């Protein structure tokens, strides 16, 4: 920056801002291109390999009328919904995670660690095992479970207002509680039901259709613009309640709005594909590291979420021997390693907790 300081003062400020904007542009572009690359691979590789040209032809066939029944079924009916499920749920998880982590000023405070998705899981398992539901019913239960858990956490943490630290601790307690509910339900279930519940619990893109993606897509259409509007106050909330209020932020209103948006994002994503573990937890920190010191991290975090989910699904399907695994197995392993790294790094720099 020594060169910039010889400029006029404004020049130095503009130079810093431009540098950050350029990096932001590069990160977003790079993530979008990588997502496209992974999506292309996922749609062309498989038991029925298709050259990219055929994939593109199939994708365009609704517009060109240039149909090929077999290819179109594979691309439009099976692989495209799967890729979309990964992108949309990953983006929702990523966005939800970064909003939680920023508001609560704690990298551990993502919805999969403070019990939101575990609450959704308990409700879903209840629906599968006790009510013998499947499909949409399970999704609705999962969504309700997430919202109910969030309300419980917020209510229990309330004492003349809510401090981030207490929210995280009570959230971790709620996660344990919801986990216990799941374990209990398993002991009451027949082995077939346990198997179904388990595959849901791991989080999987198997059998994704455009139909069961519709609720998530609609939720994103509503929630993403809301998140974008509220992200302005996220930038001041980051500096502590007093500083935010001093700058004219309506602290309680904005924080409640942001938490609500983040809970609903996690709830709808969980309802659509199950609690794919750790995507919400790792997307934000990865995006932040790519982005460097400054800049709005929401869009990059959403892109990282989608990319990680689809890349993990590709690995789970094609790179781990003959067994095709649910995506949650891979993201779970990845997230665990990242958690250890984060704790170790936080400990070294003395910023733990």
């Amino acid at each position, binding site marked *: 920056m*020594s060169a910039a300081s010889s400029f006029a003062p404004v020049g130095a400020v503009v130079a810093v801002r431009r540098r950050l904007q350029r990096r932001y542009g590069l990160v977003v572009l790079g993530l979008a291109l990588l997502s496209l690359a992974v999506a292309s691979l996922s749609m062309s590789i498989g038991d029925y390999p298709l050259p990219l040209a055929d994939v593109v032809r199939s994708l365009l066939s609704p517009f060109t009328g240039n149909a090929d029944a077999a290819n179109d079924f594979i691309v439009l009916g099976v692989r495209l919904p799967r890729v979309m499920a990964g992108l949309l749920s990953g983006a929702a998880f990523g966005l939800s995670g970064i909003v939680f982590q920023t508001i609560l000023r704690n990298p551990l405070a993502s919805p999969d660690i403070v019990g939101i998705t575990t609450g959704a899981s308990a409700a879903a398992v209840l629906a599968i095992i006790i009510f013998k539901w499947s499909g949409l019913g399970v999704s609705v239960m999962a969504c309700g479970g997430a919202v109910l858990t969030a309300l419980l956490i917020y209510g229990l943490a309330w004492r003349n207002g809510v401090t981030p630290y207490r929210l995280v601790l009570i959230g971790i307690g709620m996660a344990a509680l919801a986990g216990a509910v799941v374990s209990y339900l398993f002991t009451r279930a027949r082995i077939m039901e346990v198997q179904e519940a388990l595959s849901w619990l791991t989080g999987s893109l198997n059998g994704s259709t455009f139909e069961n993606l519709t609720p998530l897509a609609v939720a994103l259409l509503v929630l993403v613009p809301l998140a974008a509007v509220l992200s302005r106050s996220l930038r001041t909330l980051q*500096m502590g309640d007093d500083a935010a209020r001093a700058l004219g932020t309506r602290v309680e209103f904005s924080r409640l709005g942001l938490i609500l948006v983040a809970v609903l994002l996690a709830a709808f994503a969980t309802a659509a594909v199950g609690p794919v573990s750790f995507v919400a937890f790792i997307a934000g920190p990865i995006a932040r590291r790519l982005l460097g010191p*400054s800049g709005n991290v929401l869009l990059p975090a959403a892109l990282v979420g989608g990319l990680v989910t689809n890349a993990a699904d590709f690995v789970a399907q094609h790179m781990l021997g003959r067994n095709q695994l649910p995506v949650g197995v891979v993201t779970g392993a990845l997230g665990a390693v990242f958690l250890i790294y984060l704790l170790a790094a936080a400990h070294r720099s003395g910023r733990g907790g």
Partner: protein
Amino acid sequence: MTVNHQLSAADLTLGYGDRTIVDKLSIDIPPGKFTVIVGANACGKSTLLRGLARLLTPSAGTVYLDGRAIHQMPTREVATLLGVLPQTPVAPDGITVADLVGRGRYPHQGWFRHWVAADDAAVATALQATDTLDLAGRAVDELSGGQRQRVWIAMALAQETELLLLDEPTTFLDINHQVEVLDLLTDLVQQRGRTVVAVLHDLNLACRYADHIVAMRDGKIAASGPPAEVVTAALVKSIFGMDAEVCDDPVSHTPMIVPVGRHRVKPRLKAAAE
């Protein structure tokens, strides 16, 4: 700059939960002056500042900004008139100086009005005033304590408000940086006609820099006015419960407080004190 905004409070009662800290206090902040609030620990000086800055909702009484009840005003409108530097703001991990100072522009922006050239200019001016322009591209967490404090002040300056309230802006600073910060605040008052209110710990620096000093004890105002008229050995005794000699500051000719403890007191003086 001749437009001066009026900040005052009437019968202000502030507290946390059931605990009352500031009790039915009334105060007028003189516009275009440097007001310093002093007092012993837990006398309610920071609480009063937070109340004046509408960071704390009063349990009774009212804070007025230009005659309007501040808690009834839209908080963003207040933020264009009154800037606050709280005691412990949090710098987001890895944020750059220019970005942090830029966040002071928040109240001037909206959903439809984003970053414009005036914002860059305000940030540059604030950085220049606090002598932190060279740090613009650095990460805040790499800075020294003194640099960081100046950057936070720059953020409050970038808000471009007539009124500026600071809660212990010199804590954790070396003596040279303390003087630097107080000189800077005095510049704002004398050159730009701003109204500055600060809570300070160091009595002698408070006496030297304040146009108007407010001494607090047990949530009430014990004395207020120009330091030369107000600060006496009796006042120091009543506020801090400590004997002191008040003499002339050889540099600024303002009151200088020399504490008298149990040790290291020359016999002549000790006898006089007893």
